[in-house]
């Protein structure tokens, strides 16, 4: 016996209502983060112990600004997906869950926007 409605079956989204989208986005962002984190590490090592002028000049270069922007977007997107799973696993009260999910969503967007704004501002300096 199957309790799924015909519409539910056709949509094929399962109980998550979003199918395998979450899983897939987590993998895609993680693959993108392989080269981006290696680049980030290279930059952090290369800027360690230098002055703000070095950091400014480096990030003012369009390619570096773009890569830093990509690193910020992909890591925060990946963080959002990962934190969602943590809440899904440990929080079982609907109200708390919704509040935490919204809180994480807003925080991630705020942090990403702050980073991107700073990158643009550096480029414009």
């Amino acid at each position, binding site marked *: 016996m199957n309790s799924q409605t015909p519409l539910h079956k056709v949509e094929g989204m399962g109980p998550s209502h979003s199918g395998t989208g979450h899983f897939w986005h987590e*993998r895609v962002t*993680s*693959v993108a*983060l*392989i080269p981006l*984190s290696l680049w980030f*590490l290279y*930059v952090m*090592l*290369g*800027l*360690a*112990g*230098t*002055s*703000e002028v*070095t*950091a*400014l000049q*480096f*990030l003012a270069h369009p390619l570096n600004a773009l890569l*830093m922007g990509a690193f*910020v977007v992909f*890591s*925060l997107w990946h*963080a959002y997906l*990962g*934190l969602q799973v*943590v809440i899904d696993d440990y929080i079982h009260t609907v109200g708390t869950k919704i509040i935490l999910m919204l809180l994480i969503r807003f925080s991630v967007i705020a*942090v990403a926007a*702050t*980073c991107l704004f*700073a*990158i643009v*501002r*550096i480029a414009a*300096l």
Partner: protein
Amino acid sequence: MAENPQRQAAATRPLSPHLTIYRWPVTMLTSITHRATGMGLSFGAVVLAWWLVSISNGPEGWQSFHAIMDTPLGLLVLFGFAWSLVFHFLNGVRHLAWDLGYGFPKQVAERNSVIILALSLLGALAIFALVWTGYGGYLR
């Protein structure tokens, strides 16, 4: 709901998994460490935002960032982020390999867990050693 006739038996039945009395296999350790480092790195994003903003604020901004991060506590936090990034990176690659069907045999999974734990610690130490021995700052 009716009274459960098996309640007596259910109460004495062993429960599983009993996390607090489990002998931790190393795979369990790397699994929860992946989650912990992921959460840590999420907070690290806030420090990254602060760093970028401090650069965009000119010399005073840069100095205010370094005044806090160049303290022993700040360096400990940075070391935590460095180790978390290396660990989450290596174990993340292993997760992708798992998705492709590789690395599941028990012995392989245990061996790889030990390798990843050791490599992540060595990697984080190497990053700090490079900076302290003057091999950092090459973008100057």
